[in-house]
């Protein structure tokens, strides 16, 4: 559901911003090699961290026997407060996004 919502959101955004048109200078920024290099460096560092700490991590364990039912129970049981708060958060975010996008619309008219 998350993925679907996010995907539709993205599509809408692209439609609204005429992202379908290809920009003149191409999709990548002018200095894209630098960004690539930096990303590669980040990957390298993270991998180094992983490899360095491999010994401290247990290798083989049993798969935990968890069902979705258990997750749901936990959500409304133990984690009900965070659940409510996140719901509030999402509401606020949605409303906020709408307001941000809407205001601009009215002003330019």
């Amino acid at each position, binding site marked *: 559901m998350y993925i679907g919502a996010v995907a539709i959101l993205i599509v809408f955004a692209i439609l609204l911003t005429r992202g379908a048109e290809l920009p003149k200078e191409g999709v990548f920024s002018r200095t894209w090699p630098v960004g690539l290099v930096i990303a590669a460096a980040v990957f390298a560092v993270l991998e180094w961290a992983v490899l360095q700490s491999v010994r401290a991590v247990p290798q083989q364990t049993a798969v935990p026997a*968890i069902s979705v039912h258990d997750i749901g129970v936990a959500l409304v049981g133990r984690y009900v407060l965070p659940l409510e708060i996140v719901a509030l958060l999402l509401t606020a975010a949605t409303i906020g996004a709408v307001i941000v996008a809407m205001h601009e619309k009215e002003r330019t008219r």
Partner: protein
Amino acid sequence: MGTPLAGYLTVAALLFAIGLAGALTRRNAILVLIGIELMLNAANLNLIAFWRYGPHPEALTGVMFAIFSIAVAAAEAAVGLGLVISIYRHANTSELDKMTRMKG
């Protein structure tokens, strides 16, 4: 048995790097946001991996963490896209290179 922890972590790191690469090199603001989503999901993967191989998997700590993370990511994506739309209206473009009003 399954793949070792290091494997999961490596994949997560890879995803993170790819997301970062996207965020750093694309022109369009929306594509930068997609990259950031990818980075967030890479972090979620990390969380689940550590939950799976961690000390008390039955406490569901990692799972909860990941769920809430996804929720927050969705909120953040909504707000971010809303901002992009409003900036687009203002500057008539969604290219990041052109948005330099905060230039110091």
